[in-house]
């Protein structure tokens, strides 16, 4: 146990050591300053602008920014859908994968466009290499880059005043890909490959197994997709089993780097915020609130999972160790650490099956997603989500002392409050509505793999994952039906754009305001009081919204399990 806790500590130490300089680097990139990679990338960046008709200094209002973003997303949606339908006619398809069923293809296109990477298909049995590369890998980069771009637009507006513009979408997008995602993806892919992650365009391999059988082994260009899948908090696996598949995460080191990868950029962004607003302490306070929430959830999940399963123990399994749905090379604690990290961020890659985790472990993961993935969160959108909660916190603090709330030197007025509440509660309400519909409809219930309260958890998890743009699943639920493909696609769209559009609206409004000097009556953000209030607001809003349904799902299952009931 001591060794395993040391492993957890190692991850956090490495993360904190890297996040601060990475945050400074991000701040420099988006402020247009010279960076380490500028000599190499700046010419490429300028070339792209020239070819693509981008005026680098051209500024956009929040509405133009949003329009550009929506047009760009629509193109991605069409491209991914189209590729899946015509993949049989295109090269790099050694297994002759045919056209994907329309509802699955639509769900996949929406899923990768929205940075969700929910997968109702099985990678190795559905997608050609070209679709994986030119369709899915591209969206892995672009959806992540869009999230970062929007976060940067919002942050930028805290230091702007009396202007109607928030930046240039094309420039933010391009810089995210070139300076941040691509270099990291190359490094991660090379390390992954050295550990055994496959990277080949050859056909699947036929093996004559030792014990007299035949095994067809799926391979493919995996390392290049595997790296961006974690770095961009996308999470869509090349193979069906995602990072549990030995070709996607062959060793404990790759497991460690995948966890680090999905937390890295998201955890750097609060630091980038601090640098850009010229107040690193305030950035650190936001990071601290995230870390506190992360550790609370992780502790509960570790406690729950390492206690083991009483049913298994009774049957004669030493310690009741719950290895169902877990890989031997990782073991229980790293699997929980991975699952906690993949659900607090919007990554959604899995190295173990969350459906088979203990009830309260699953509850923690459900909660992480249901609150909107603001604990580090998805790249860009996680910080945005946390800023919604921070705005709410300042509003509550303002109410207590009867003063107009402000944040980072900007006054918060009804418009910002309305937008923050839409961003905070929009996806959450969608989870409850869609889950409610699924429970009423026979077609919703017929997809269940588990009975009893665990079945409710499966449905809840699906929609929390979709609306949170996470993409992990209680995978027993058969989600490849017309109903679930369309319902989760709707959830993903609402989850994504009910976060991004209000955020841009807030950015537009903030840019117009003057900057007010801090006074003694301002709640200092760089203080333990604010950190505690922010973390508390997240927990209270999440609990108020979801407590009743959590009681009927995971909590009831835990109680009945202790009473010896199976389903």
């Amino acid at each position: 146990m001591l060794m395993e806790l040391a492993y957890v500590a190692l991850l956090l130490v490495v993360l904190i050591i890297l996040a601060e300089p990475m945050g400074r680097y991000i701040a420099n990139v988006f402020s247009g300053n010279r960076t380490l990679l500028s000599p190499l990338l700046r010419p490429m960046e300028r070339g792209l602008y020239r070819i693509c008709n981008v005026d680098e200094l051209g500024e956009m209002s929040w509405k133009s920014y949003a329009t550009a973003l929506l047009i760009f997303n629509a193109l991605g949606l069409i491209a991914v859908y189209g590729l899946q339908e015509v993949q049989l006619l295109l090269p790099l398809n050694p297994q002759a994968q045919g056209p994907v069923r329309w509802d699955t293809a639509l769900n996949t296109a929406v899923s990768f466009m929205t940075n969700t990477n929910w997968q109702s298909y099985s990678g190795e049995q559905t997608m050609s290499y070209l679709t994986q590369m030119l369709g899915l890998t591209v969206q892995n980069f672009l959806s992540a880059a869009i999230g970062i771009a929007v976060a940067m637009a919002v942050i930028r507006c805290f230091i702007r005043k009396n202007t109607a513009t928030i930046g240039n979408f094309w420039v933010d997008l391009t810089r995210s890909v070139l300076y941040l995602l691509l270099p990291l993806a190359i490094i991660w892919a090379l390390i992954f490959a050295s550990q055994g992650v496959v990277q080949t365009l050859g056909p699947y391999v036929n093996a004559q197994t030792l014990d007299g059988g035949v095994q067809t082994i799926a391979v493919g260009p995996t390392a290049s997709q595997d790296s961006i899948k974690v770095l961009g908090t996308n999470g869509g696996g090349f193979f069906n089993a995602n990072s549990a598949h030995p070709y996607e995460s062959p060793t404990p080191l790759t497991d460690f780097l995948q966890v680090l990868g999905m937390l890295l950029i998201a955890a750097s962004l609060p630091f980038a915020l601090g640098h850009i607003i010229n107040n690193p302490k305030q950035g650190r306070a936001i990071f601290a609130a995230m870390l506190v929430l992360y550790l609370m959830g992780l502790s509960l999940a570790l406690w729950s999972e390492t206690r083991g399963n009483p049913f298994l123990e009774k049957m004669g399994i030493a310690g009741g160790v719950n290895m169902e749905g877990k890989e031997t090379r990782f073991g229980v604690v790293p699997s929980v650490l991975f699952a906690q990290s993949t659900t607090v961020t919007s990554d959604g890659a899995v190295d173990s099956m969350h459906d088979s985790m203990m009830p309260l472990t699953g509850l923690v993961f459900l909660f992480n997603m249901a609150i909107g993935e603001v604990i580090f969160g998805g790249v860009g959108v996680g910080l945005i989500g946390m800023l919604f909660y921070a705005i709410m916190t300042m509003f509550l603090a303002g109410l207590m002392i009867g003063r107009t709330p402000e944040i980072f030197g900007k006054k918060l007025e009804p418009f910002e409050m309305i937008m923050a509440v839409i961003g905070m509660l929009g996806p959450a309400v969608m989870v409850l509505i869609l889950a409610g519909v699924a429970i009423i409809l026979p077609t919703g219930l017929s997809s269940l793999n588990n009975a009893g309260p665990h079945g409710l958890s499966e449905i809840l998890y699906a929609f929390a994952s979709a609306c949170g743009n996470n993409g992990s699943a209680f995978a027993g639920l058969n989600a490849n039906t017309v109903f679930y493909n369309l319902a989760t696609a709707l959830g993903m769209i609402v989850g994504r754009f009910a976060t991004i559009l209000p955020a841009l609206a807030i950015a537009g409004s903030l840019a117009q305001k003057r900057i007010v000097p801090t006074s003694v009556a301002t709640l200092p953000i760089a203080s333990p009081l604010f950190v505690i209030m922010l973390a508390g607001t997240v927990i209270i809003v999440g609990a108020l919204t979801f407590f009743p349904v959590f009681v009927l799902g995971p909590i009831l299952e835990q109680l009945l399990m202790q009473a010896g009931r199976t389903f």
Partner: protein
Amino acid sequence: MNKITDDLKTAMLLFIAFSLLTGLIYPLLMTGIIQIAMPEPASGSLIVVNGSVVGSELIGQNFTSPGYFHGRPSAVNYAGNGSGASNFGPTSKKLMELVSQRISEVRAENNLSSNAAVPSELVLTSASGLDPHISVEGAMLQVPRVAVARGIPESEAKVLVYQHIEPAQFGIMGQERVNVLNLNLALDELNRGGH
């Protein structure tokens, strides 16, 4: 209106540029570099015996003969082109029935007493259905059966298991484990060498 057409044009051009960059140049370049620098892992860490592929070091396979060490039960019967898990929840009656049955089988196959503790991974399915490893205890428990079936001394089989223990990486990452395919290949090697 003009603004929208401009946006659309830029969007299309940038989309094509990024599709080429991140969807073709990047993955193909990585494929080239990785295939040249580390061809074996890049192609799947395949194991070739007498000129034919017998499997991948990283992908578990089904073993049922008493003379081989057995891996974990698999929800997909070790389909190398169809990874997957059972996704049974912790209170699933079906799971408990299956596990109970598997425990009885493991105890019967290995001549264990009816209340002997069984390592968790030997009777619970993995997340990928392709887990190539079992725990050291899981391998040790099978040593007597394998030794009898092969007609080799137990000590010899035990030494083989010890030789195939993969430690936690860097002493801190993951857990101690045994690669079942590698171990069984070594067993076959041993028998061939003996004759």
